[in-house]
């Protein structure tokens, strides 16, 4: 008896842990992989369906269109994913994007591309850092901090710009960010890919990545292990702010138009991409690859629906259904969902 079961002893104790704490995800990695699979399956199904519906769907041009459409939301979602991994949330990204672009835009009369782009990115970084400090050092819940910051930054964008749109037309380098290309690949797509790779490296292979997941997984234990949890959270918010500023700049550059009323509701779209990508809002899980797949799913769905001429209002309904369909199976067996 002992010999027979012996080799299972370890697994059994594993099971006991699970049973005893029934309310915890019993086997997190397994379910993670379920939703990972369902995500990829949905993506592949969409690609097949898309090609079946419109023959030009997988053409290089359309792929460019899809990637360009998701570039800004994807870059914002990278930042958001990092924030969500630490168990926090950033609702201020749309506000940061617009305030940063306005701040940068106010530099247009100087004619210096470095000043315009630098101001934009630094403003994003700085507001993100303020978020991070309020959340990590002062312990204000991130939902509230960033909700407040969303209102503040939108208001400041209006106040600074006097509500007027700004036109970055004279700054060639700025426009190049949104409209230029590198060896035939549009620059926003290049940035999407490069930053995606960097974010994957950061989350999966860097020591900061370990600190990131540790902070999200158990902030007390991480702190007692000597991880600078305040710093980690401040940094992810700063990154998220910078990503938001960059994404905002790409959009503004593509349209050559900095709109102080822009990016309305973007925070929720980005959040939708992030959770669709498998990041749990309770922290400690999520991956950039998941986020990338999710951004592609949303981009393809919208592209297809637009090509089919489906109204934007029905598109909202369909997008909601897609999110639910992908997210639900992965959650099915979790104990308590909050």
């Amino acid at each position, binding site marked *: 008896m002992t010999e027979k079961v012996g080799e299972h002893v*370890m697994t059994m104790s*594993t099971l006991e842990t699970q*049973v005893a*704490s029934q309310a915890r995800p019993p086997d997190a990695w397994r379910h993670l992989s379920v939703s990972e699979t369902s995500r990829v399956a949905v993506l592949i199904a969409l690609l097949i369906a898309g090609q079946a519906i419109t023959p030009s769907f997988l053409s290089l041009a359309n792929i460019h269109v899809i990637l360009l459409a998701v570039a800004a939301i994807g870059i914002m979602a990278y930042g958001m994913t990092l924030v969500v991994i630490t168990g926090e949330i950033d609702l201020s990204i749309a506000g940061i994007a617009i305030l940063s672009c306005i701040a940068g835009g106010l530099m247009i009369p100087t004619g210096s591309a470095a000043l315009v782009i630098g101001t934009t990115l630094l403003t994003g970084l700085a507001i993100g850092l303020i978020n991070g400090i309020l959340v990590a050092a002062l312990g204000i819940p991130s939902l509230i901090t960033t909700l407040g910051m969303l209102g503040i930054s939108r208001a400041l964008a209006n106040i600074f710009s006097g509500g007027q749109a700004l036109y970055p037309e004279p700054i060639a380098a700025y426009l190049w960010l949104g409209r230029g290309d590198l060896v035939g690949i549009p620059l926003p797509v290049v940035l999407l890919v490069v930053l995606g790779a960097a974010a994957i490296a950061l989350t999966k292979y860097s020591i900061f990545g370990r600190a990131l997941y540790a902070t999200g*997984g158990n902030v007390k*234990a991480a702190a*007692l292990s*000597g991880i*600078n949890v305040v710093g980690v959270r401040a940094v992810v918010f700063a990154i998220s702010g910078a990503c938001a500023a960059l994404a905002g700049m790409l959009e503004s550059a593509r349209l050559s138009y900095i709109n102080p009323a822009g990016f309305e509701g973007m925070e929720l779209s980005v959040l939708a991409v992030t959770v669709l990508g498998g990041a749990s809002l309770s922290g400690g899980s999520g991956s950039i690859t998941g986020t990338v797949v999710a951004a592609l799913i949303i981009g393809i769905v919208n592209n297809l629906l637009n090509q089919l001429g489906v109204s934007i209002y029905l598109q909202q309904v369909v997008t909601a259904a897609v999110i639910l369909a992908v997210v639900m199976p992965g959650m099915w067996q979790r104990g308590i969902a909050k």
Partner: protein
Amino acid sequence: MSAPLLEVKSIRKTYPGVIALSDVTFDLKAGEVHAVVGENGAGKSTLLSVMNGLVAPDSGEIRIDGQPVVLNDPTVALANRLALVHQELVLCPNLSVAENIFLGREPAGRLGKTRAMLNRMAKDLLDQIHVNLDPSRAVGELSLNEQQIVEICRALACRPRVLVFDEPTASLNDDQVVHLLAVIRKLKANGLGIVYVSHRLSEVMQISDRVTVLRDGSVVATRDMAGLNEAALVALMVGREHKPGQSAYKERRCGDVALETKAIGKAGVFDDISLQVRTGEIVGIAGLLGCQREAVVRAIFGDQSIDRGEIRVQGRKVQLRSPRDAIAFGIGFMPADRKREGLILPMSVGDNIAMTILRRLGRLGFMKRRQRNATANSLVRTLAIKTNGLSQLASQLSGGNQQKIVIGKWIARGGDIVIAEDPTRGVDVGAKFEIWRTIQDLAEQGKAILLLTTELQEMMDACDRILVMSRGRVTGHFHRKDFSAEAIAHCFVA
């Protein structure tokens, strides 16, 4: 003769590829304490879950008063007057003691009257077990110990006939254990049947009438406690002869003072604490709950601030503003609450072990994965951590193995000073021994160790010196040759 109060008959429960319980049978009479013991992984938790209706067995049945019952939900178990006192404290911190006790069983009362009525009923219940605790206090403000009492009262509130205790003393100190056992005896005298599950064999010996030993999901034996000694019990549990000499204490030569506090104090918490730990020395701080020894070690680890006095590491005065500072000075801390403070459960074994040495494993910010794996693997081997591999999640390991990871990550860090808080809490007999041996090994390698345990005997087994604290002050100081439970206990209340 009437049927036993509770019969568990041929329970079998399998999970894919694993037999968790096979043919488990035992019974419980009214007015009896029946202990269930076994190593971690023996199937105790599954059995408790089956009895509580959280898990449905594949086959077998449970009878209460001779009547078969299907416990498919915790409520059904309660309806059959079988109540479970959970090992983990599952209480609502935002509710009062009374509200917690009667949660889910509130008497229907008119508007406004419910609260007063609940408080009165709770008071009655607390009086029954001779505990004086204000029922209107919020549970979040209570100490662990007080919360444990609430947990027990909650089980009692449904007027159970069968009461199942799952490791009820895990967070209690010796003194409180004595009182808890007194409460249990009282319940037993009232005619309750009690199933008692605990790793603390000394308690089991004291309180139980019969004992059922589980090993690998099967019942090894059910015996009367009379005439059974601890060694025999351990032998049944582990399936081999096992020497209970847990101490593994070896005489060592102590070196220079590695850690010293000079009259440190924190207003309203502790004051005038001076202690020294030499290299190679194990110093224990003993005391009852509320003596603030936890606050002292947390202050030494920089997790709490001090207002007075100074801390010296290797003779140098240091300012510790955060655990990071303490770690930089070579201090390591193994917290008692593994799940909440020790481990990052959703991360892998390898990541958890590497948590304290991330910076060292980095090259240009990237993780030197091979080096991390080498370090972690060697620790898994030396500490005999049972795991599928470094990528297994910490949450999937048993308590003993989790504790070994907590120890391992500080070994990996390699600091000179180690603070160990209750390193064997909730750990089974086999692992307990290994953990004590590891701690002795650490001391032998020249580390200075500051030790806190809830069981005085364990502390006396392991330490070179013991400081006793009471109400935030040091009230006694003993060298190993002077160790005496009575003398130390005397200082507890000094």
